[in-house]
């Protein structure tokens, strides 16, 4: 191979490693026991914040239910998107481990969401099977389009999810009721939002914006995500 290609490959690998390194430091902080989501992963029945639900008016109960229902549907879809991407790109040396790591984080998020759903007795969305199939399809199709397209899909989904979590945090801040479970919910959503934005950074660092028709792909995926969010809130 000509020396310039060898140099280019070495730089690419170095950039990938650099992309992995700071995330390794961040990952250890989010999996440490001080993270709010770890209280849901530990299942301590004496913890009032993870085992009781506040007394809310009907309207507030509906709002809380919508928030948790949409978040759970989003985590199901994200899990299956990564599953679809891994099905195609799993063997790829550059992006396979990246996608696997992001997928593992999403699995933890889904466990937390399931426990939140059970704690607050929220009805899950009827569209859960649709979310699974659509997510798998989206992940597989964008992965078939190429590694960069898969990263572009991740970038679009994580952008919408990050903004959505932000809106939910604002809505929760306006809730007048004070209860340990609600403040824990806000901390958990903040942590999840930060994780999703971290995935967004990863996707951008890994050349998601190099995709041809990047703008078109991200617009389609973002619009699809917004429609799905509105549907899952109601159904």
């Amino acid at each position, binding site marked *: 191979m000509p020396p310039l290609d060898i140099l280019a490959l070495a730089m690419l690998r170095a950039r990938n490693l650099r992309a992995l390194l700071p995330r390794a430091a961040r990952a250890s902080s989010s999996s440490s026991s001080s993270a709010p989501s770890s209280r849901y992963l530990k299942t301590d029945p004496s913890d009032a914040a993870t085992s009781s639900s506040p007394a809310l008016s009907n309207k507030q109960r509906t709002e809380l239910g919508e928030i948790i229902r949409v978040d759970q549907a989003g985590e199901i879809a994200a899990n299956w998107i990564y599953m679809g991407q891994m099905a195609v790109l799993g063997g790829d040396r550059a992006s396979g481990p990246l996608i696997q790591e992001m997928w593992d984080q999403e699995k933890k998020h889904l466990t937390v969401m399931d426990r939140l759903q*059970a704690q607050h007795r929220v009805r899950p969305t009827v569209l859960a099977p649709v979310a699974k199939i659509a997510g798998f399809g989206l992940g597989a199709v964008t992965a078939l389009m190429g590694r960069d397209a898969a990263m572009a899909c991740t970038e679009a989904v994580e952008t919408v999810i990050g903004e959505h979590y932000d809106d939910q945090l604002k809505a929760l801040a306006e809730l007048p009721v004070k209860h340990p479970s609600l403040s824990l919910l806000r901390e958990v959503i903040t942590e999840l939002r930060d994780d999703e934005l971290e995935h967004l950074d990863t996707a951008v660092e890994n050349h998601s914006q190099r995709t041809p028709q990047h703008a078109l792909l991200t617009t389609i995926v973002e619009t699809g995500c917004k429609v799905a969010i509105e549907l899952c809130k109601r159904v």
Partner: protein
Amino acid sequence: MSRSALLRQAFTHVPSHGFTRRALALSAPEELSDSAVTALFGRGEEAEKTLFQAWLDEGRQDMRGALSEDAKGGEKEKLYALLARRLRYNEPALKHLPDAFALLSSPSFASSLPIPLTLPRFRLLPGLKHVSSVADEACWLLAPSSGSQSTTPTYYLDRTRVAAVYAAAELHQLSAPGRSERFLRDLLEGTGALPQVVGEMGMFAEYVGRSWAGIIRSRGM
């Protein structure tokens, strides 16, 4: 006395007076006047509906007692215990229940003026709402408290089955109270195989899906 305390006191008068304004009037230590009942609970039939709804809510809260008594027993036993307890809660007021359910379905005027400003809304599904809320309560009480498994896969299927069983059992109880528990047990056993059947349908669908995936892959697409 607070409004909820008065309602709870009114429950003790329901077996003798039914779900009527009279039962509400007797709830306070000194009998409430009709205008006081109207002010607290609503005009005309609204007050009676409020009383009935509160009685139904109390019935759902009461279901929790079934689990603490019967600590042993598998899922089926616990479900039977929960639904049987709810049916037993009906017994004191059984003869007033058909009228009360009819009352729930009757239209109500929401405006505060005595003139109807909008057409009366016929509530077609109040009985279904009651049955589904009992089923919801039963399923949440049965769900594992630690939340180690996800509740999503069989959420709607469980609730549909329990709601149908409870609806049939309650209707049977309204006509033949003596045999209601036996009927409930028969229904639960009869529909017990339902989740397994749906699971097997899912497995078959997955099998068909995999064959199609194999065909598409072999066509080289």
